[in-house]
């Protein structure tokens, strides 16, 4: 029997271990982004806009020209980069606290303007970097360090469904939600990242992919349990699929 490597290491991915916790999906998300960048022959013309969260060191793993944006402001920073250099490929990589709380205005307006940038949005339903506080995407009933009794719908509201919201905006060319809990979903995630990138490359508009990801440490679970939680708890509330696709595919 021959072994087939499903996800070979792309050149643009640094050859070093990450600082991510065991079972965290950031590393896998980085790798998929790296693969898509290479398949589309983009690394040499790419400017990555990093965000503030566990992925703040993205430049240690993706060997790209990178700028660090203040917490939540990556879509505004990306707007500036793209307006300055429309010939470059520009993407942001953001967590759910970053994008859906402090940076809600920036992401909405960036998408609505139809900025020719792409956004990779890692939704792990929690603030990872700061130690597991409630995020705007925390599920009702989910316990975090700032909703120790579980998120209460009447007190904290329901989690934002960003892919649907972004998909409803006129400037968006592509918006989808995927997950990283199994091989099939990982492959779909890669496809969605590619379409979100192509929305920019083909000058169709704003490209957005929300990736349901695990955070075993702050969920207080084993990596396996965390994967199961994605399927059992997250996907039922955050349905997978495309919410906008004007690429004709």
């Amino acid at each position, binding site marked *: 029997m021959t072994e087939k490597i499903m996800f070979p290491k792309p050149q643009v991915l640094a050859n070093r271990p990450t600082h991510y916790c065991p079972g965290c999906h950031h590393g896998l998300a980085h790798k998929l982004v790296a693969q898509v960048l290479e398949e589309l022959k983009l*690394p*040499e*013309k*790419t*400017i990555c*806009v*990093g965000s503030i969260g566990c992925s*703040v060191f993205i*430049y240690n793993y993706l*060997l*790209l*020209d*990178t*700028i*660090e*944006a*203040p917490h939540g*402001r990556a879509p*505004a*920073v*990306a*707007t*500036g*980069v*793209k*307006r*300055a*250099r429309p010939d*470059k*490929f520009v993407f942001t990589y953001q967590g759910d606290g970053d994008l859906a709380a402090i940076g809600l*205005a*920036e992401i*909405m*307006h960036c998408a609505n*303007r139809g900025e020719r940038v792409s956004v990779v949005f890692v939704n792990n339903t929690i603030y990872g970097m700061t130690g597991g506080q409630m995020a705007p995407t925390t599920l009702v009933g989910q316990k975090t360090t700032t909703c120790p009794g579980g998120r209460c719908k009447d007190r904290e509201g329901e989690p934002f469904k960003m892919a649907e919201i972004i998909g409803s905006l006129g400037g968006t060319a592509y918006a989808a939600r995927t997950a990283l809990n199994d091989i099939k979903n990982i492959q779909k995630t890669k496809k969605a990242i590619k379409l979100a990138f192509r929305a920019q490359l083909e000058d169709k508009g704003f490209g957005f992919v929300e990736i349901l990801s695990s955070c075993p440490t702050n969920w207080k679970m084993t990596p396996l349990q965390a994967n199961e939680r994605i399927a059992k708890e997250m996907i039922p509330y955050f349905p997978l699929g495309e919410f906008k696709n004007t690429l004709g595919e």
Partner: protein
Amino acid sequence: MSKKRLFVKGNEAIALGALAAGCKCYFGYPITPQNDIPEFMSRELPKKGGAFVQAESEVAAANMLLGAVSAGIRAMTSSSSPGISLKQEAISYMAGSELPGVIVNMNRGGPGLGDIGPSQGDYFQATKGGGHGDYRLLVLGPGTVQEAYDLTIKAFDLAFKYKNPVMILGDAILGQMKEPITPWEPEVPEKEAKEWCLEGAKGRPPRVIKSLYLEDGALAKHNLKLAQKYAEMKKEILFEEFLTQDASLIVVAYGSIGRIVKSTIRTLRKQGHKVGLFRPITLYPFPSEALQVLAKEGKKFLTIEHNLGQMVEDVQLAVCPYAQTDFHGHLPGNLPTPNDFEEPIIKALEK
């Protein structure tokens, strides 16, 4: 070089200066009294192949500026006091990341929503950093419409020379006042950011523009590097001395107040009073040494500001232990005239 004269507002002069300096992107959000700048830019910048974006907030506008200058192009944002407060996060990141953003503040009254009239209430915010962290901006305080044009061009040059954000600190008087100017076209360096800007890592290792320094000792080293840069900026100090040589009292005032005081000085001179004007043009770095020279000569000082006393602290630091400075603060809500300053100046002179 065009020798044509134009009759424009200070706001327009800043926009014209930015275009002449090769500004390629402008990001802003409406606020009085600086709306002429985004309005002018929305009209004129696209004609020059540049990009104008009306941002969703000043927070976003300043972060767009951060992104645009990281790509090595000349870019600008402008606002007035409440909006400048919102820009501080990005300004701090630009200082930490060593990025050459140009920020215009047409200062209005505060705190809070204050009023929409002129004020110099943002002097501390502009010259002492403004946002979080240990950093400084280069701050230029134009006093006339021509100077607004000239200093805007200079702001872009300095921003790229020092890889540091530069603030132009005007006020509602300067922004709205119309004066004749002679525009000129500076030489704009073409590849001034080639060595550090982001454009895709082609044939070279990737570049990272950031302000995070977590490794042991790394931030201290970075802070020291910045401090050295701020020390070097002293070369750029600019000020105007007017009839200071034989004066017994030096009035220190900047921006439009400096210019109004100049008229008062002229009147008082005609009446035989030995008074002169010292007008700082770079507010950071502050012309402390030049002031100290005057203090050593035994002159008296009076600082006049359109606030309750901010620059006066820098003046006091500069002139002590050789002198003390008196202070006169013009309150917000009305436009000062040269007459308003006669009495306080004579009082200080006779003290």
